[in-house]
């Protein structure tokens, strides 16, 4: 590929592709976000056969495919399963580093919720610590209606 092009500068064409998206949350996620927004409640769905409570909620059980019609309110408090602290300003981060991400298993849920930890120094964060959801003042039906989780 090289001989005929020796001394020729490679052309670099900069571009962006623009494809806007609006994802349908669906009725199940809709119910979760309405409860978050209007009642500051965290809801999950439960599979009777597998005896599991899913947060975020699932319309059908991923394992046995039965329809999860039972809704369960889980506690806003839970145990930290794992965490990381983003120190470098990675491009996907929506706010300035350091940003603490955590997987929080809320009391009553069998799965963990991915979210931020805040109001805590990075050094104080440890697996197994108890944390509690702090709800945003202004809520509009997104995962950001929970502002973060912070130590109990």
């Amino acid at each position, binding site marked *: 590929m090289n001989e005929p092009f020796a001394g020729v500068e490679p052309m670099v064409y900069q571009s962006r592709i623009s494809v806007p998206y609006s994802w349908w949350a669906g009725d199940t996620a809709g119910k979760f976000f309405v409860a978050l927004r209007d009642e500051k409640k965290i809801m999950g769905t439960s599979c009777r056969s597998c005896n599991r409570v899913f947060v975020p909620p699932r319309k059908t059980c991923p394992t046995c495919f039965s329809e999860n019609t039972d809704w369960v309110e889980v506690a806003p408090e839970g145990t930290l399963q794992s965490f990381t602290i983003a120190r470098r300003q990675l491009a996907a981060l929506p706010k300035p580093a350091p940003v603490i991400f955590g997987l929080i298993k809320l009391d009553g849920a069998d799965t963990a919720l991915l979210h*931020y930890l805040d109001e805590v120094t990075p050094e104080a964060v440890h697996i197994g610590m108890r944390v509690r959801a702090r709800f945003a003042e202004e809520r509009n039906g997104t*995962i950001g209606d929970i502002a973060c989780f912070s130590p109990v």
Partner: protein
Amino acid sequence: MDKAAIIGVGMTAVEANKATDTFADMAWEAVNKALEDAGMTLNDIDNIVTTSNDFWDGRTISCMAVSDASGARSKNVSCVEGDGAFGAFYGLTRVLSGSYGTTLVTAHSKGSESISSLITNAAFDPIYDRALGMDIITACALQANAYMSRTGTTAEQLARVSVKNHGNACQNPLAQLPMTLTVNDVLDSEMIADPLHKLDCSPVSDACCAVIIANEERAAGCREAPVWIKGAAFCSDAFFLGDRDLSRAPALTQAAKKAFDMAGIERPADDIDVVELYDAFTYQELMWLEAMGFCEDAQAGKKLENGEFDRNGTLPVNPSGGLLSGHPVIAAGLIRMAEIVKQLRGDAGACQIAGARRGVAHGANGLCGQSHCVWVLEK
């Protein structure tokens, strides 16, 4: 499983930025090298499977970019999205189905053309998770912490993986990052997301790899002795990170067991001579070795310290330098396969593990190694 073999491999060098090569140029290079390696021409290729990813390529129907260059114009062709090891699996089924005697499999990406943080953030669920702004590094950091916490694996042990693999890369002319490092070099490097330092992470690279799979009859006519496919399997874990026990890799265990069963292997650590696995991050090498059953749970760090996975150890792992030394996503797993083929043929040059007869190649797909593909190859 009917007999099938890999009879040709070819790849470009792994580089940070192949400014003068388009996707098609890379495919052209890899495909021609594989054909030459097999002593074949395009006429000997019955069908083609290309592997690519639309997000990484910034291109819907990303396979279109390499279709002509892979010789697909007047042949049957299909396209996998995911790691190249999975593409090769599909290519294998197209031979075993009896439809085709040979399949040419390619896999490529040019990480230099995009912002990897944004590309991998798009793997997160758009409804619940994506807005939080995680990417592959923060996700894997989450997993590393969980793994280290449960198993007691230390930061020093992780760092040793980096030292070993970058050091191995010094023998590999195709590797992007041959480096002579100490454990302290790794621990002192920038902390990107706890516990992953910069040198715990693979770079984002450009490359393309091609392999040719043949049935027994077509393998007979080739230039090099065929490398037989004794076992191949893949399996995916749950998707939401919170649904999984991130400190374990049950999907890999299941895939590895199936592949080993197919190959009649009961004691992988004893029966396998060399491993090329998906070390996108240092902790992954240790986690995947344990999950595949090459050592007991939580023991990989210690065995690494004892030198067991070094080039002159009892089970050399990533003698090529692995992904830590150059990580072209999508091509990555196929390159692992190509490296094992070279090892088993005795063609691995300065990376050669003496007397290697049986090897394992491993590819992974998705966040935190959600989905795994394991190959057992034998000369």
